[in-house]
């Protein structure tokens, strides 16, 4: 069993509106799985179904080889995008309460909370009320509450909102560490740079349909255009351009560089990157040579636009 979660042909309708139309995806064990899509695409509907907040109209969900059932709640940790805590309740009481709702015993919850509070160095907040904390502080508590019961499946919906870059980095590190310790993570966000940084797999949902999924590297490979951005220091710029044109498609490039010289986007034809490089080195001093790999952002925009 390589998939922790299998979503098979899930359909969900609200009245006459279809929120999820025959959506299937497999989430491999021990991976960070990016669930992407524009606003209103159906991500939250899917996440709520996985959390058993709502039920699908048809289709099935398999968690770790078993059909999803109420007792699985204890194996799932969910950090919703719309999140908060009881404002007038003390941090410690609140964390204990939420942990117990996830099926932990009080003593066990206390022990684990101590570990996390020490780790984040927030032990002093135990008897403070949430309303006395800043938003970032409350988010830290919220993160701890989500992961405390050591679930197999963690679902983070925009986990970095409300964090400053330093704390966002801290949380990102924690998420990756949880993955390394064996947890499977569904990660939903609009911040594409964090998708690049963290996701092993992605799935893209648009207008209630899944339009793309797979390993992030594979998808990138699929979407690669064989275009190289090059910078060349040469006295014979026009001549080099003409010669390049014979074997490659070229277009002007615009990138920031400290070096003067020719800046071009070069698209390979039947030749290889080595052919390009050896030509360039023969005609000047190469100061920039980068394959233009499509970013998650590019793939997102391109795929969504194509289906619209």
């Amino acid at each position, binding site marked *: 069993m390589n998939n922790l979660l299998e979503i098979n042909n899930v359909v969900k309708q*609200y*009245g006459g509106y279809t929120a999820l139309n025959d959506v299937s995806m497999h989430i491999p064990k021990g991976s960070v799985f990016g669930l992407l899509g524009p606003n209103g695409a159906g991500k939250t509907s899917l996440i*709520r179904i996985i*959390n*058993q*907040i*709502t*039920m699908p*109209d048809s289709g099935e969900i398999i968690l770790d080889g078993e059909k999803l059932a*109420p007792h699985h*709640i204890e194996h*799932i940790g*969910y950090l*919703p995008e*719309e*999140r*908060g*805590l*009881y*404002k*007038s*309740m003390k941090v410690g009481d609140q964390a204990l*309460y*939420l942990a*117990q*709702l*996830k099926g932990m015993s009080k003593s066990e919850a206390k022990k684990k909370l101590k570990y996390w509070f020490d780790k984040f160095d927030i032990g002093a907040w135990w008897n403070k009320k949430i309303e006395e904390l800043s938003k970032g502080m409350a988010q830290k508590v*919220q993160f701890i*509450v989500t992961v405390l019961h050591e679930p197999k499946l963690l679902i983070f919906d925009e986990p970095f909102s409300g964090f400053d870059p330093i704390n966002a980095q801290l949380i990102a590190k924690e998420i990756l560490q949880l993955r390394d310790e064996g947890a499977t993570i569904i990660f939903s966000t609009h911040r594409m740079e964090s998708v690049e940084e963290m996701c092993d797999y992605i799935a893209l949902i648009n207008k209630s349909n899944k339009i793309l999924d797979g390993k992030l590297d594979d998808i990138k490979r699929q979407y690669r255009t064989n275009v190289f951005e090059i910078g060349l220091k040469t006295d014979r710029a026009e001549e080099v351009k003409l010669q390049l044109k014979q074997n490659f498609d070229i277009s002007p490039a615009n990138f920031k560089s400290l070096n003067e010289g020719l800046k071009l986007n070069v698209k390979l034809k039947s030749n290889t990157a080595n052919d390009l490089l050896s030509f360039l080195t023969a005609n000047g001093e190469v100061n920039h040579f980068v394959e233009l790999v499509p970013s998650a952002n590019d793939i997102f925009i391109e795929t969504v636009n194509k289906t619209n």
Partner: protein
Amino acid sequence: MNKLKLIIAREFIAKVKNKSFILMTFLSPVIAIAMIGLVAFLTKKNDDKVKEIVYVDESGLFLDQDFKSTKTIKYVDFTKLGVDETKKKVEEGNHYGMLHIPKIDSLETLANSIEFYSKDTPGLSVIGSLESKVNTKLRGLKMQKLGIDEQKIKLSRIKSDIKLFNFSGEKTSKLANGIKIAAGTVAGYLLMMFVIIYGAAVMRSVIEEKTSRIIEVIVSSVKPFQLMLGKIIGNASAGILQFFIWGILLFTLSTIASVVFGFDMGGMQQANLSPEQTQAIESMGNDKVQILIQELYKLPILKLFLLFIFYFLGGYMLYSSLFAAVGAAVDSETDTQQFMMPIMLPLMLGVYVGAFTVIDDPHGPISVIFSHIPFTSPIVMLMRVPFGVAWWEILVSMLILVLTFLAVVWLASKIYRVGILMYGKKTTYKDLWKWIRYSA
């Protein structure tokens, strides 16, 4: 089940730890007692002050004995001074007012020509007692004129007093009826107030979870229905705790108050009566007083209390599930208005039916019907119970209430389940209907 307990405990503690709950629990009995004490004190003070009323009788018909001074009003004859002079004197002095009886021969015309001057608008009781004095005098004069013997009329007067019995042969009295009305009304009003206060508390608690955005975190751990039920039960437990604290506090405080202020109701009453009247009461009223006391003890206090708890729980559960649904449907308390009306209406109706119909005819068709309609039955039935309601009737009413609660909580939970995750859009009744039909 375990999770439900956790939720109930949290809701209970959150409610009980709340400052306003603590304040309300311990302060309101004190305030209630203090208010009653204050009113009693002021009334007593008020009565202590003697009002001096002067009269100018130009007709010469009235004698000194017609204006007998009482403990609170002293009558002074200023006829010799004349109207204008007296007016001036009253205006400048400390007299309460001046009664002017002009010289008119026709008794009918005179009856409508008597005037009373005062600085402040006089109280109804003062005018009432003046009018009755004038009436008595003029009626007597009129009788003389018509040749009717006043003594004979007095002798012919008969006062009937129908004795009330029920078929088990117990003697009751009209006074006892008054006590039953009072007991039922107090219980009914209390119940309505509690349903509103605690129902609204449930609603606020739901709204708080929505606005603080913790709701989605919670419902990923527990079923929305469990959360709703836990909230309702948790708040009800806090309510029952409050009852008991109030009961204990009211009992101790009123005991202390009666000792400190020395309210001796019997003594106060007797003080206002003339010796003959006291004697009259002693001869014929002893029986009544005894019945009254008996009746108070006979009042099914325990039954009333147990039924109060049952109907409070039943009515509260029924209404608070509606309140919870309303809380789930809105984003803030200000948006609740449109949904509150249909909830408040049957409550108000219950109280009005209770206050007007039950008192008039506790076992008439309207009283019976409304004591079975579940939205009004908690109030109306409680008001009927002191008059004696057949046990099977109470049982049927309870059963209907329980069944309706189950149906309503089922509907409410459907609205609740969808509503708690809805933000931003203003909810309409059409939306609510749509939510009810959504599948889980």
